[in-house]
Structure formats: structure tokens, C-alpha cells
């Protein structure tokens, strides 16, 4: 369980909340989708239809927050992979925005393909510390107008874990939900056991664009879990200050959540925070920086204040390759946001070069770091057994604890065994080939891809998925 690490006091959280209310009441938001604007108007917002601006009174926002479910169950094809997203529980997963892959064999950066997506998905399914999936990359070798359907197809085939996925417009949402319900065994079954959550981004500052809102409306009707993610840039599309970014993010995400609750009260919604700073020396966003960790911790505390499940970010680096910079940038973020209880921590595994390059060997390395973070999160168990006074007394001065039952009983629970990190002596390491972590990670990738298979979907279902894509292709032409 997280929640042990905080950077904001409760007073500061309240101040951020109050500032958010002020922004929504005074500045308001731009809502381009007409149905959403009308809903806001009918439910208490001050709406100007010409400028499409909606000013939201605090009571209205508080009602929206109250309607959002406090706990959400996200499911995979295998029920053992069910996630209970609530409170301070932290899960770790992949990212979804890459367009390049680091080639496993040549190390070259190349364009990402649907085949890469299959390997990524299957590898993530095999890695024990990855709790949920995203595509890591958007396959570039498919029709970009319907990449969401291609991505959904691969995920349904290649993993038994829950996946976040994209949906392009109302049509995309309908198709992807249809595909998922085929595998879930029906629409009602899918609603009760959602296989997919959907990520929709706000446009900072303070704008809900038409297509994403239209998609949200369609998803809300089906009570499909929606992640409303703000990806603002400090100093660019958000204030340069971290607190100001938290306020802006809060205003955008809470208003998106409000709209979803107005469409269908009780729609499972997840607060998404993916903001990052800009390097003002050149205009690029920077991701591997401590400020991203601070934002991740701050937003975890905010989401806990509202009782809304959170999609946070940690484990992202500016490094282009799996090198020491990648390692320290990722680890610092993963441990702090994990300890803060960031619920669904994405970009935690597999991502390099800000958010645009995926890497299979990095996924394996990240799996290892996450395992260490999860151990840290488990903390120190203190009870009469673990205080061990009985066995201390039995062993006595100058004895040893090796052969004791207490040691046997508690060893594996107290101490994690590394799989990837090398903890041998120098001699043993040399004897094993003097391999560095990258070589070992690559070997692990190859072994897992070779040995890990997913239970195939029924042929009839596989055919129907293919058919949905075929029809979508035709429609998009």
C-alpha cells in the first residue's frame, strides 16, 4: 500500500482545491462538443454558447466528484489479474505513446509495427511486476485512422491482463467496445468486468475538444472506464510553477469527470495526470526530471483527497537508450510515486526517449526496478513473530539463525530474490560470461517471448475481431 510518502500538507491540498474551484468558477473551461456544453448549462454552469465557455460553480463540481465511483475493478481475461483501483493501492504498467522501437538485436531506433505490439503485449503479460498493459507504441504500419481497432485486437489476443487502450471518436469507441464484449462474453459481462479502460486527453489549457468529448460520451453511456488525462506542459500550456500545474490539471480533469457524470452518473472515471515541464533552452518537454516525480506525488495526494482513482506517471526518462541515466531517472520516479500511492502508475515500464521509443529490454529492466519498489512499499512488518524475541532467546549469544524454523518460515516473505540484478561475486559473474544488465535483459526478453504463450481466443471470436477491422478499413477509405 502506498500513501507513506507525501510532499503536500493537508492545508496545501486544500489550497490547491480552493484555487481549482476559483479557476472553474472565474475562468471556466472551453467545451467544444455541443451536447456536453448543453448538459453543463442544464445542470448549473454559466454557459456562453458563442464562445463555448462554461463557468462551473463549486457546488456543481462537488456533486460531480461525489458521483464518481471511489473504487473501480479492472479485469483481464484471467480473473487472477483483476485490479482493485482505489485509495492508496499502487499498480504499475506500460505507456502508450511510442512511435519508434529500439530494435532488440541491432539497437537501432526504427518505426514501431503491429508485430512489435504483439511482442510487447506478450512480454508484458509474462513479466510478474507489470500489473496492467498499454500498447507502449502505436503501430505505424496500419491505417492510422483506425489504429485503435488494430491495437485492441492485438491486446485481446496477446494478454490475460487488463489493458488501457485508445478509442478514436464515437465510431472507434463503439468498435473497440464491441471487440472487447465479444471476448468478455457479452456487453453486460464487459460492463461488469471491463477488459479495457480508455484514455482521453484534455487539451491544455482548459479545453475539452470535440472528438475526445464525443468519445467520452459514447463510453460513458456504456459505463466503460475512462481515464481523463491532462498532459500539460509547465511554462507552456500550464503555469510554470508546480502548484499552478496541479491547479490547472485539477480543473481540467475534474471538469471532464463532471461531464462524464452528467452523461451517466456512476460512470467509472479515473483521474489522469501526465504533465511535465518544458526545457526552456530548446522547447522540448523533459520527463526524467525530479519535478515529474514531485508532480506525481502531489497529484496522488490530491486524488486521495477526492477519493477518485488515479492514473499517474512514473518511470519515464529522457534517455534514448537503456543506460544509467534511464535507470536513475526511472527509479527515482517509480519509488516516490509508488510510495505516494499513485494507483495506476503508467509509463513505468518500457518507455525511453521521453515517451516516443519503446524497448523490450527496458521493459525487463523496469520490471526488476518495479519489483524492488514493490518490496519497498511493503515496508517492515512488525509483530510478535517478526520481532523474533523467542528465536533470539533460543539462539542466544554467539549462536546463528541459519537453521532455525523462524528463518525458514520468514525468509522469502521478508527478502525478495532478484532475478535480473547480478548479486554474484566477481568470479561467478565472470564465469557466467561477464554480462552486463542489458545483455541479461535481452536474454530474458528472448526467453520469455520464446516460452510465454497466451491462451488463444476461440477461432470464431478471432474471425469476428478481424471482420470488425475489415469493415472499419472499408468505412475509413
Amino acid at each position, binding site marked *: 500500500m502506498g500513501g507513506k510518502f507525501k510532499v503536500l500538507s493537508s492545508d496545501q491540498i486544500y489550497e490547491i482545491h480552493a484555487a481549482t474551484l476559483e479557476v472553474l468558477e472565474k475562468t471556466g473551461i472551453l467545451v467544444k462538443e455541443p451536447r456536453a456544453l448543453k448538459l453543463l448549462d442544464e445542470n448549473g454552469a454559466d454557459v456562453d454558447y458563442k464562445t463555448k465557455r462554461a463557468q462551473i460553480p463549486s457546488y456543481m463540481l462537488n456533486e460531480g466528484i461525489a458521483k464518481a465511483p471511489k473504487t473501480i475493478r479492472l479485469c483481464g481475461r484471467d480473473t487472477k489479474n483483476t485490479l482493485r483501483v482505489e485509495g492508496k493501492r499502487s499498480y504499475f504498467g506500460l505507456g502508450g505513446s511510442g512511435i519508434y522501437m529500439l530494435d532488440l538485436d541491432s539497437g537501432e531506433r526504427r*518505426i514501431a509495427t503491429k508485430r512489435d505490439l504483439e511482442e510487447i503485449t506478450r512480454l508484458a503479460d509474462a513479466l510478474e511486476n507489470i500489473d496492467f498493459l498499454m500498447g507502449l507504441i502505436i503501430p505505424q504500419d496500419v491505417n492510422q485512422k483506425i489504429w485503435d481497432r488494430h491495437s485492441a485486437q492485438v491486446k485481446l489476443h496477446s494478454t490475460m491482463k487488463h489493458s488501457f487502450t485508445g478509442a478514436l471518436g464515437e465510431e472507434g469507441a463503439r468498435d473497440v467496445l464491441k471487440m472487447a464484449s465479444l471476448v468478455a462474453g457479452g456487453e453486460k459481462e464487459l460492463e461488469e468486468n471491463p477488459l479495457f479502460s480508455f484514455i482521453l486527453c484534455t487539451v491544455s489549457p482548459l479545453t475539452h475538444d470535440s472528438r475526445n468529448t464525443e468519445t467520452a460520451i459514447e463510453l460513458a453511456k456504456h459505463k466503460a472506464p475512462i481515464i481523463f488525462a491532462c498532459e500539460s506542459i509547465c511554462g507552456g500550456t500550464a503555469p510554470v510553477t508546480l502548484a499552478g500545474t496541479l491547479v490547472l490539471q485539477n480543473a481540467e480533469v475534474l471538469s471532464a469527470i463532471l461531464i462524464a457524470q452528467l452523461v451517466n452518473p456512476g460512470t467509472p472515471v479515473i483521474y489522469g495526470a501526465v504533465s511535465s515541464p518544458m526545457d526552456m533552452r530548446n*522547447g522540448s518537454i523533459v520527463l526524467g526530471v525530479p519535478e515529474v516525480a514531485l508532480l506525481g506525488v502531489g497529484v496522488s495526494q490530491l486524488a486521495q483527497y477526492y477519493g477518485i482513482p488515479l492514473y499517474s506517471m512514473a518511470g519515464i526518462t529522457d534517455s534514448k537508450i537503456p543506460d544509467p541515466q534511464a535507470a536513475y531517472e526511472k527509479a527515482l520516479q517509480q519509488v516516490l510515486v509508488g510510495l505516494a500511492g499513485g494507483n495506476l502508475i503508467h509509463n513505468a515500464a518500457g518507455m525511453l526517449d521521453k515517451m516516443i521509443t519503446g524497448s523490450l529490454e527496458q521493459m525487463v529492466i523496469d520490471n526488476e526496478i518495479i519489483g524492488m519498489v514493490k518490496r519497498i512499499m511493503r515496508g517492515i512488518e512488525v509483530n510478535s513473530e517478526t520481532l523474533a524475541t523467542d528465536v533470539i532467546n533460543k539462539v542466544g549469544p554467539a549462536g546463528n539463525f541459519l537453521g532455525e524454523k523462524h528463518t525458514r518460515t520468514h525468509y522469502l516473505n521478508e527478502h525478495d530474490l532478484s532475478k535480473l540484478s547480478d548479486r554474484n561475486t566477481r568470479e561467478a559473474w565472470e564465469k557466467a560470461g561477464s554480462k552486463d544488465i542489458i545483455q541479461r535483459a535481452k536474454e530474458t526478453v528472448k526467453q520469455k517471448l520464446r516460452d510465454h504463450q497466451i491462451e488463444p481466443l476461440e477461432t470464431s471470436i478471432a474471425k469476428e475481431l478481424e471482420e470488425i477491422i475489415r469493415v472499419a478499413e472499408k468505412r475509413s477509405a
Partner: protein
Amino acid sequence: MGSPKIFDEMTQSVEEFDIDRALKLTEIALRVGIDAIDILEKGFSRGLKQIGNKFGRGEAFLTELVAAANVMESVSERLSDEIIKSKKERELLGRVLIGTVAGDVHSIGKNILKAMLEVGGFEVFDIGVDVPTSTFVEKVRELKPEILGLSALMSTTITEQREVLEALKRAGLRDAVKVMVGGAAVTEKWSKEIEADAYAENASDAVKIAQMLVGKR
């Protein structure tokens, strides 16, 4: 004609990011008969160049660059009629038309590029976001830029960049302008596939490439 002192004050107003002062100085200069082009070139541009140099040395950041560019833009806007009437020519590397393609509302990258191009010696026309393909074509015809910059953030909207290039061909304007493409989802491979003239990964590179495209590098 033109007192060097007022030009110095104009330069200073840019360096201090003071739009009000800049506009006041502009009015004074016009009243005493200083040519609009001289106002821009001898007064304000120098300030922009100073900030640009500081930025290049790491002593100023984008936030200062954009603030300085904003001062220039306010002054240029005020002088738009006078500029047309002037017999003098601006010392510009060229005219760039930029916009975010249809279906895409992201603007921060484009806005950063605009400021950096202005500092880099270009005249920039920013036609905004979600710009229909036909508007790009119209504006190329109207403004005759040396360079057209197309911004698209998402893999679903980069296809519009191809649409614009095709539309330019159909209108017989493809050869009249150099087309640069950019945005997070744009790759070099894509830019070659759609036969754009150039691609840049970030704003700094884009400025250098733009300077090359107009033959000034």
C-alpha cells in the same frame, strides 16, 4: 533621419518585454516622421537580436524569447499600414506561413517555433490551429511565403499534412513554396513519404533548416 536615442529606447523596450512602452515609442517616432521600416529595423529588431543572442549563449530562455517576440508583433501590427506605404525594405530572411493542420488543436510547438523564427530573422504569419487544407492553399496564394510550416501533433492528424501537399500540387502552387513539417508524431520517414521539403525534430533545428531553405546558411 531619426534620433539614435529613440532607437535605443525601442531596443530597450524589447529587452524589458514592455509592450506599452514599445507602442508609446512607436507613436512618438511616427509623429516625428520616422519611417516604419526604420522603426522596426533600427529600433526594435536590435532588441530581438540581443535576446536571441542571449538565448544562444544560454543567458535567456524561451520565456524571454517569446516575450520579446510578442513586443515585436505588437509593434508590427500597429505599423502594418505604414509598412505597406514605406519605400524601404525590411531586412528579413523570408516569409514563413505556419499553422496546425485540420482536426488538430495543439499549438504550443508552433508558437515556440514562431518566436524562434522571428528571432532568426523571418517574418512569420501564424494562421492558427485546426486550419482547413483549403485555407493553407489560399494563404499561400495570398501571402506568397518562402516557407510553409505544417504542424501536427497526433498520428491521426499527420495525414492532413499530405492533404495540404496534394492540394498545393492541384492548385499549381507546390513549386512556389518550400514545405516543412513537424510535430511529435512526425518522423523523417513520413516527411519523405509525403515529399515535404524538410522535417525538423524541434524548433531550434527548424530555424536552422528554414535558414538553409532560403539559402541564407
